């Protein structure tokens, strides 16, 4: 019943909306709803900016709309997604920004390598190309995509867009995501028979960020996450009614994730105090992640006193979180000796790329660049290759030699020889500052 009403709401809204150029007005901010899933009991004020406040007239209109069973749409027909199969949507990918060590490596996949294998081995550029080829029917062998096969189309499209974000081509992904237009368009994306949204959740979530980037409007992301959160809340309610525990847990974790993503979107809008306020309204799930998130935000803002306060709230089981926060606070206060000592104390208990890299960064600020270099080179030798690790090591090479291009080229070769993994094998020139 609630679902029918929602559908009505979507359709009614649509008439007043000029395509996806304007964010859909929100009826009710679901993250500040009152059932306490995300909001702590102490916060009573909504965290949202005025434009997100529910307008009472509009909200009641949406909720009490007559639930007539969609006669104006005609009988249920399968949706046609041929507009997503147009070759002009998908951009060619540049190989010029891939270092020769990777371009000419025998590890480069062939055009026959299946998509799943490309993903498993971290060949994301190749996977993005393969997904677009399959969508546009330009593969040599392989069946053409049926424009009504929503599952296959959206799986491929998600693969395409996700892989673009993983190879530092997020702006291309944002352009290509525009082809989806408005995912809230019920006529296009809601299955008439089941009332289900045909686009998988992960694509809808990714689309929020890409759409905000594509339109250069970060605020849109905050609003769209709230739209999705409203739906997640509705799902939790329905799952509770049918005693479907696994569905309930799934949607609860999705809702929590949306809450965290709203904070991220606010940070990207430079609304740091808003983000801090918002994070403060979320409930910790007992894994210390929220305490760490809050502390990182305070540190980003430069407020070490508040960051330390987050550390002191950590329980005994989150001892590592507390130590990370305090070590970062030392760095923010330019106490690099103390910070280094804290990072070194970690070493024996856990091996963690972040701890190694931060230790090396400390050493550089202490004037011990050679030791920092040794640590980072060891991390690469152990098979690690995050962007940050490579960027910092390349920066050290730039400082340590006039002929740093040779050192950076050698580093690229070393990384190209690492095992392929879902962490991503191929790197770009920017990773090595080449």
């Amino acid at each position, binding site marked *: 019943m609630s679902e029918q009403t929602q559908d009505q709401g979507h359709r009614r809204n649509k008439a007043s909306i000029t395509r996806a150029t304007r964010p859909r007005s929100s009826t009710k901010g679901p993250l500040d709803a009152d059932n306490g899933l995300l909001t702590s009991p102490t916060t009573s004020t909504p965290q949202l900016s005025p434009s997100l406040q529910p307008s009472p007239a509009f909200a009641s209109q949406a909720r009490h709309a007559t639930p007539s069973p969609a006669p104006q749409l005609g009988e249920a027909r399968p949706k046609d997604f041929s507009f997503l199969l147009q070759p002009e949507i998908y951009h060619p990918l540049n190989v010029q920004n891939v270092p020769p060590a990777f371009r000419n490596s025998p590890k480069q996949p062939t055009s026959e390598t299946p998509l799943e294998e490309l993903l498993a081995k971290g060949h994301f550029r190749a996977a993005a190309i393969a997904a677009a080829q399959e969508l546009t029917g330009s593969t040599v062998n392989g069946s053409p995509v049926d424009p009504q096969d929503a599952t296959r189309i959206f799986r491929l499209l998600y693969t395409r867009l996700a892989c673009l974000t993983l190879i530092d081509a997020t702006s291309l992904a944002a352009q290509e995501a525009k082809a989806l237009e408005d995912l809230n368009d019920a006529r296009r994306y809601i299955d008439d028979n089941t009332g289900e949204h045909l686009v998988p959740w992960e694509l809808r979530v990714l689309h929020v960020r890409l759409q905000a980037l594509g339109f250069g409007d970060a605020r849109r992301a905050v609003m769209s996450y709230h739209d999705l959160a409203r739906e997640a809340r509705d799902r939790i309610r329905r799952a509770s009614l049918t005693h479907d525990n696994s569905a309930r847990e799934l949607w609860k974790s999705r809702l929590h994730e949306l809450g965290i993503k709203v904070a991220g979107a606010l940070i990207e809008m430079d609304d740091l105090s808003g983000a801090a306020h918002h994070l403060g309204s979320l409930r910790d799930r007992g894994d210390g992640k929220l305490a760490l998130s809050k502390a990182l935000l305070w540190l980003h803002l430069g407020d070490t006193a508040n960051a330390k306060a987050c550390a002191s709230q950590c329980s005994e089981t989150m001892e590592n979180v507390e130590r990370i926060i305090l070590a970062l606070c030392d760095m923010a206060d*330019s106490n690099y000796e103390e910070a280094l000592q804290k990072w070194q104390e970690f070493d024996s208990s856990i091996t963690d*790329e972040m701890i190694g890299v931060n230790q090396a960064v400390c050493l550089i600020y202490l004037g011990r660049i050679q030791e920092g270099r040794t640590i980072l080179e060891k991390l690469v030798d152990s098979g690690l290759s995050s962007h940050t690790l490579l*960027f910092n090591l390349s920066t050290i090479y730039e400082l340590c030699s006039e002929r740093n291009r040779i050192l950076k080229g050698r580093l690229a070769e070393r990384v190209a020889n690492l095992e392929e993994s879902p962490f991503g094998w191929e790197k770009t020139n920017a990773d090595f500052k080449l």
Partner: protein
Amino acid sequence: MAWNLTPRPLHEPLKLQAQRSQKEMSHQSYPHHDPIKEPHSVSVKVLRLSQPSLVTQHPIDPPFSPPNTKSQPAPASLAYAPSSTNPDPFLLSPILNLPVSFGSAYVGETFSCTLCANNDLPPDAAKRIRDVRIEAEMKTPGLGGTQKLELGPANNHEGAAAGGGGVDLEPGGTLQRIVGFDLKEEGNHVLAVTVSYYEATETSGRTRTFRKLYQFICKASLIVRTKVSGLDANTSSSGTRKWILEAQLENCSEDVMQLEKVVLDVEDGLGYHDCNWASDGDQKPVLHPGEIEQVCFLVHEKGADSGVRMTPDGRIIFGVLGIGWRGEMGCRGYLSTGKLGARIPVR
């Protein structure tokens, strides 16, 4: 009553690109110290050590994951190898990046920079590099001219004496030093780095020197405007005079800053009451570029004949206003104004 720009009118604002790459900190070589035409065996590299930054991440679900299950984020979308220390799906992660670009330099900040002298000879070279020394000085726009900079770290682990002695460098070896300088003036600054070393062959040797100049512009970070008004109403009752000192602090930098403290360093015979965030435990104000925070102090005489200083032209001097702030990842700034005062009408 008008607001006074404190302590003095600002120079013409200097417009710069928001982001300058480290390489763009324009530098020039001055080879005139060294008559030898041969290329140098030692190079010098510099990096501005502003605060390291927290790396951002956008965790996403892996493609081809089974529908309607909660999967672990795609490892490639995380800032570093999957670990329980990662607060995913949060945007900020605890791993730190070295400074990406030179950024902007602001009055009130400490400029920190690392200088690396490197032996760039191949391992099989016949020459030996001995007694490498780095010196640095800063040319400021004002009359102060040039200041010699102290080179850290004081207790270097490579055993090099920071107190003047040189260091021998093997091929590929690096001598790293760090300098710090409190930026107090707007305008053109030049960091001059001089490297000297002894180049020895089997039979002979010579001392060589070269100098590089790195130029950057320091900009204003905070504009302070002040206003003083007398509180006549209370004068008669207690017999002591009171004033309200207000200040508007405008963030004229391109970065977000969080004000940490505002303090009045008052002259003898005066006391003050802080009416700002610290006094009632409020959150410290965050100023985005272009935003203004207004602060207020209640200044009072400690006694009727407290001997408050007056200037010959009838101005009463209150003291100095100090403003401390923090920027991204704790970057510190501190400014103090000139002496603040007000003309007191004759009663």
